[in-house]
Each structure stands twice: as structure tokens, then as C-alpha cells.
């Protein structure tokens, strides 16, 4: 038995049954990391004394006493003095940090190439990007270098690399998980969530990391109606239901038009047919303002970034601002401009109004359906370097993921097939704070297909 093939739930059960010890578990993963990581560059920091269940943590999440760089040269020696809340919550469950994962600098990018420490390579094809920004986290799960990983999702940064690397990734509702200890990018979009080997694992991890801590004002009882009612067994009822019979699944026509790769489209349509054959009712819905989402997102994103990045002044931590990478500088410039005197109303305020319309689109669509499905990414993983000099082209690859961040709603990427040997992910978007239905649909789909069993060939 290869221990590293097991899911989180299988690993926990195997340890309980004393099939192997935690030491054997960690040794198996550390051995795998030593062989595979040099080819993929998923980890920036490896904890050789890891004990407990080895998880890989995106390097924008603070880990006490473990260097946390956010993929940036300016934080190359930054040593957090406290753990992010999500880390404390994982430690309580017997999880350990096996390593910190590479990512686009300060979580800005769509390919995993914007790290000061070199790009992450896709385990399915080393000449391809992993997607971003939780690039190393997705690649580490895809190549079985950890039991699971945490990522952060500001505009698709969990879902898109999960899709392009063939693993499960969940962006929770905004406010479900505390951001305390997350190095902020876009404070009104940022979420922390799991990247896992199966949907049930993602549900369990979400259960572990959810809940108010008094350190994130947007993560509260009010923001989380499920909390207290079902949080201790978030998946309880749904997991036993195991059915999509009678469930209404919305297919937004805007997500299947121009710009979507035809092979990817076919894979997604087949996945939706599968859900229909499992008893779901497919209904057409419309998200009419979708075509404006990207522009609104890429105004609000740099605006909040330019403000958040103000803290990096080289006084309290980090080196000087001249050490920032090109994409970070570009966004600081764009955001500073969008917020500057005379332009605020035309850009930032306008984008915030479009955001309202996008949120309302979803609210109207969810009157007709329980979840919305579509592609995560318009294409599979592209070649390293292909879009690096064309920022607008890079931004356009986020077209199907950003809307969930604008609206604050949950989104899941589940492996649903391949196009020319590269993985494709099905996106399942849910109502605000309704991760339960999203996970249920994802799990029913996953269990009725064999895609999860496909693994990249790592015998290089």
C-alpha cells in the first residue's frame, strides 16, 4: 500500500486502526517530497520534523516560527510570531504543517508564475502552468506530496489551480472562515479554503477551519447562519443523503459562450449530463452582467491591493518596495490610479455598483435553482510563459471564477475529465453560506465517476 495515495478520511481511519504510525505517514510523505518537489517547485519550505497529519499550507498563511514569504522577495526572511487562526484550528485536529507552498506573489496572478522563487510546474505536464495563485498547494495535492492543503481564493486562486491540476478545491462563502493571519490581498474577496484529494475531505477540512474567532469582523455568527446549527457535523445530513434527485441545477448560458475552449466545453457538458442522469433537473439560468464581472473585479482588486500593500514599507517587516515583483507593482499602480482624486467615481465606485448587479444576478438565478454549474477555467493548463507579458490576457483566464468572489458565495472545483491529457474541473457554485448543497452535489458526482482515481505519471 502506498500511504500517500490515501485521502484524509482514509488516513485518519488507517491511523486509528493502527495500520501505520504517524511517523511512518510523515516519512512516506517527506520521502515523496524529496523526490518530486525539485521537479515541481511546489514547496518553498519543508518541515522535516513534521508529526501528525501532514498538510501543505499556502505561503500567504502565517505559521509561527516558520518562514512565510507570500512568494515575495520582500518577505524572504519574514518569521511570523503567531499562527493564523486556521493553523491553530488544524493543530487542534492533529494536523501538522509539512511545508509552505509556493504561490504567485501576494496572491496576485493566474498561473503560479509570479513567485519570486520560480514558477510551480504542473504535475500532469511539467511544461505547463499549474494555475494560481494557490499553485504549490494544488500541485502538492495532485502529486500526493501532502494529505491535503490550504489555499486562499480571492478571484479563483483555489478553484482554478485545483481544476488545472485535477484535484478538489473549495472556496468557502466570504465570512465562513477567519482570515486572521492571512496576508491580505483583497480584503473584501479573500477566503481561505481546502484543496483536497476528494470532496468528503474538503468538507471535513472546511468543518475544521470554519467559525468565528473574534479576530475577523466579517466572520461572525450573523454571517454564518449554519453555524451552531450544523457546524459540528456540517456534512452530516448531506453525506447520508448522497443524492441529487429532484435538485435543480442551473446552467448559466453566459458560461458556455465565446471564449470557452471547445474541448473543455464538451467535458463540462458531459459532466452536467451525468448529473442529469443521476436525477438532477437541469434548468437554464442567466447571469446577464457576467460580461462586466471581469472589469469590475480588476478595478476593485487592485484598489484594495494598493491600500493593503501600503503596510509593506520596509519599516516593521520586509525589505523595500523596489523589491516587489512586476505584477504587484502593476496592481498597486492600477489601484492607486483608480482611487485617486477625479477618478474614484468613474472606476472604483462604478465597479462597486456593478458588483451589486452581479450579486443580484446570482440571487435571481438561485430563485430557479439550488446550485449553478459550469467550467472553472476557459482552458486547460497553458504553457509556462505563454501569457506572462500580456496582463489582460492573463486576467481573462479568471472569467468564470471571479463572480463568486464579487458575490461572496461558495464555489467548488471537482475533477470531471480531461482534454488532451490535461485535467478539467467542474465548478459548482452555491447560495451564500450553502456549502452543504455544493459539497453534496460534488460528492455525488465524484462518487459516480472514476476521475478521482486518475493520477499524474510522476516517474520522471
Amino acid at each position, binding site marked *: 500500500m502506498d500511504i500517500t495515495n490515501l485521502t484524509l478520511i482514509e488516513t485518519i481511519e488507517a491511523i486509528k486502526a493502527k495500520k501505520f504510525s504517524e511517523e511512518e505517514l510523515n516519512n512516506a510523505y517527506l520521502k515523496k517530497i524529496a523526490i518530486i518537489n525539485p521537479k515541481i517547485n511546489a514547496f518553498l519550505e519543508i518541515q522535516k520534523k513534521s508529526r501528525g497529519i501532514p498538510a501543505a499550507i499556502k505561503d500567504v498563511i502565517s505559521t509561527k516560527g516558520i518562514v512565510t514569504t507570500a512568494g515575495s522577495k520582500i518577505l524572504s*526572511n*519574514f*518569521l511570523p*510570531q*503567531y499562527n493564523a487562526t486556521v493553523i491553530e484550528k488544524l493543530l487542534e485536529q492533529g494536523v501538522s504543517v509539512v511545508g509552505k507552498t509556493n504561490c504567485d506573489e501576494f496572491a496576485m496572478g493566474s498561473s503560479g508564475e509570479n513567485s519570486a522563487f520560480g514558477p510551480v510546474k504542473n504535475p500532469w505536464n511539467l511544461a505547463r502552468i499549474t494555475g494560481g495563485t494557490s499553485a504549490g498547494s494544488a500541485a502538492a495535492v495532485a502529486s500526493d506530496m501532502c494529505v491535503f492543503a490550504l489555499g486562499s481564493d480571492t478571484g479563483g486562486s483555489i478553484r482554478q489551480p485545483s481544476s488545472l491540476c485535477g484535484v478538489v478545491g473549495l472556496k468557502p462563502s*466570504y*465570512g465562513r472562515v477567519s482570515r486572521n493571519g492571512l496576508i491580505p490581498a483583497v480584503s*473584501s474577496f479573500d477566503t481561505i479554503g481546502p484543496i483536497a484529494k476528494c470532496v468528503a475531505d474538503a468538507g471535513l477540512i472546511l468543518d475544521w477551519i470554519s467559525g468565528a474567532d*473574534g479576530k475577523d*469582523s*466579517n466572520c*461572525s455568527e*450573523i*454571517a454564518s447562519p449554519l453555524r451552531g446549527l450544523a457546524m459540528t457535523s456540517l456534512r452530516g445530513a448531506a453525506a447520508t443523503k448522497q443524492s441529487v434527485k429532484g435538485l435543480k441545477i442551473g446552467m448559466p448560458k453566459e458560461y458556455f459562450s465565446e471564449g470557452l475552449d471547445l474541448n473543455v466545453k464538451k467535458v463540462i457538458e458531459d459532466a452536467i449530463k451525468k448529473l442529469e442522469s443521476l436525477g438532477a433537473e437541469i434548468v437554464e439560468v442567466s447571469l446577464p*452582467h457576467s*460580461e*462586466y464581472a*471581469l*472589469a*469590475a473585479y*480588476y*478595478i476593485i482588486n487592485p484598489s484594495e491591493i*494598493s491600500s493593503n500593500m*501600503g503596510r509593506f*514599507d*520596509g*519599516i*516593521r*517587516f*520586509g*525589505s523595500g*518596495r*523596489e523589491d*516587489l515583483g*512586476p505584477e504587484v*507593482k*502593476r496592481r*498597486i*499602480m*492600477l489601484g*492607486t*490610479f483608480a482611487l*485617486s482624486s477625479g477618478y474614484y467615481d468613474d*472606476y472604483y*465606485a*462604478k*465597479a*462597486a*455598483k*456593478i*458588483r*451589486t*448587479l452581479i*450579486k443580484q444576478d446570482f440571487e435571481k438565478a438561485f430563485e430557479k435553482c439550488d446550485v449553478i454549474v459550469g467550467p472553472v477555467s476557459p482552458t486547460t493548463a497553458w504553457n509556462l510563459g505563454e501569457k506572462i507579458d500580456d*496582463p*489582460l490576457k492573463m*486576467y481573462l483566464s479568471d472569467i468564470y471564477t471571479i463572480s463568486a468572489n464579487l*458575490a*461572496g458565495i461558495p464555489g467548488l472545483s471537482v475533477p470531471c475529465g480531461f482534454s488532451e491529457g490535461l485535467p478539467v474541473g467542474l465548478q459548482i457554485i452555491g447560495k*451564500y453560506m450553502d456549502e452543504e448543497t455544493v459539497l453534496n452535489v460534488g460528492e455525488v458526482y465524484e462518487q459516480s465517476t472514476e476521475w478521482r482515481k486518475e493520477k499524474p505519471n510522476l516517474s520522471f
Partner: protein
Amino acid sequence: MKIDVKHVAKLANLPLTPEEEEKYSEQLSAILGYFEKLNEVDTKEVEPTFNVTGQSNVMREDETASCLTQEKALSNAPKKKDGMFETKGVFEE
């Protein structure tokens, strides 16, 4: 739309090389061109959304709690003096 790159860089406290100024001037103009698309949408009657949770002024009890020690708070500072962060002077002598 053309950005006054030098002015914006100054507002952003961002040191840019002349090459960067040229590159960003070009790239940001293209991105701003794309943003023009939003003018197609009439938003006169639309309220802006800044936060989806609708929360505001979240309060907690005013109680003291443990916090980082001075030593820990200073541990990542590139320059420190007499137990404080050292910065460049703000006022001329």
C-alpha cells in the same frame, strides 16, 4: 485613457525605473481601455456593494488580552533602535 505614471507612482510610494514607467504606461492604458466596457451599464439607481456580509461596526467588549511582546513585535524589523522601529526622518532638520 493615459495614466500619468510618474504621478501615480509617487502617490503609491513606489520607486519605478524608467523602463518600468514606460512598460506600465502602455500596459495600464490597455487595461483601462478594457474597463471602458462598464460605461455600457446604467448604474444611476444602483447602490454600491463594498462588503457582501452587510456587517458594519462590529464591536467587542473592551477587555485587555495578551498581545505580542515588544521584542516579538520588533523581531522582523530591518532596523531598530532603543527597542523601537527606526524610520527615516519625516521633518527636515
